């Protein structure tokens, strides 16, 4: 009898305007990573240091959108990935970076680079290499279609594990009491 060779699902991850906390929490699934690696293979992700994004089955994105480069990477993930998962508070509602949304960008740059203590004649960075900041920080679903969301700041390893298992089994993740958290 032929053995069915199951093709591993290709998974890419990235952190946009996030703190890498969600990636750390993902690594907290510890030895369950080995079980997961039976089912998936990583494409672009900070975990493998692969920089180029290929065609993927699943893209997992931490962090919201605070600059033009974030938007560019998000759109590329949407183009290349069949399923996109937003992970963590920042990806889902902007999170901590979005707390700047009540202030004007000009005022923030002024405060950070010109008027705050210890900055004599500070210059607002304007190297063309630097991506331009957005006027407001936005969550991912306001720019591209997101298939699934895993809330939490960060979501616990158990929440991530449950959600990924649900998704790999082909249904929407459902986190019950104790696993669903916004903090």
């Amino acid at each position, binding site marked *: 009898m032929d053995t069915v060779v199951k093709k591993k699902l290709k998974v890419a991850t990235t952190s946009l305007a996030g703190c890498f906390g969600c990636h750390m929490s993902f690594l907290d699934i510890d030895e369950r990573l080995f079980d997961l690696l039976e089912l998936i293979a990583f494409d672009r992700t900070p975990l493998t240091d692969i920089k180029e994004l290929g065609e993927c089955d699943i893209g997992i994105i931490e962090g919201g959108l605070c600059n033009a480069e974030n938007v560019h990477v998000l759109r590329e993930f949407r183009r290349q990935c069949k399923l996109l998962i937003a992970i963590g508070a920042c990806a889902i509602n902007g999170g*901590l970076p979005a*707390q700047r949304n009540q202030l004007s960008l000009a005022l923030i740059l002024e405060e950070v680079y010109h008027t705050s203590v210890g900055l004599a004649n500070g210059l607002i960075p304007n190297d063309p290499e630097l991506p331009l900041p957005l006027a407001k920080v936005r969550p991912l*679903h306001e720019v591209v279609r997101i298939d699934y969301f895993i809330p939490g700041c960060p979501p616990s390893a158990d929440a991530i594990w449950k959600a990924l298992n649900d998704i790999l089994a082909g249904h929407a993740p*459902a986190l019950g009491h104790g696993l669903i958290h916004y*903090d």
Partner: protein
Amino acid sequence: MSASFTIDGKAVPFAEGQTIIQAALAAGVYIPHLCHHPEFKPHGSCKLCTVRISGRQSASCTTLAQAGMAVESDTPALNDERRTLTQMLFVEGNHFCPSCEKSGNCKLQATAYDLGMMTAHFDHFFPSRPVDASHPDVLLDFNRCILCSLCVRASRDVDGKNAFALSGRGIKTHLIVNAKSGRLADTDVTLQDKAVRVCPVGVFLRKDRGFNVPIGRRVFDLKPVSAYVDATAALAKE
């Protein structure tokens, strides 16, 4: 035998003059709610408590129980609508739970958990709502106000101070402080006021403490909001 009606097929007894939600909570049947509070007259604004009675939807906190009525509440369709209402509440304000002292003890958050809200879905308004830090003991963070009017009712009906009001209409509705300056410091509100302790979300915050109960031991870490049926007593201890 006392009169009764049914919720999702379960018989619920009631006394003359009780609303559906009053009878339900007394009988241990949870109906999601945010602006209902057992000690106050109904306001009927959040619509989370909407149920179906003979094919018509109505707020169970403003509808009197009647003998023989068949009420549907815990149905996928109603819970979908409740989740949508909850999502709207999240995007209309600024709800950053990780930095909110009320997190874990917040009825909006707990209700969203219970309804399986994984995302706020809609575009966020990111409104600009400056906080009022003028009072020595109480901080007002308007970013989280869901306009349930509980502080308004408590200050007017219990504290006798009438320190708060909802002003404006429609999407422009907002909570105001009844003082000429508009500042909390210029009212006679104190930490002991019912108004300060009744908010279901994180608007009224004591300045002398914050994050005093560790994650894992907060009210809704222990049990989901539906398991409390009426979380008033548990929250009052906080």
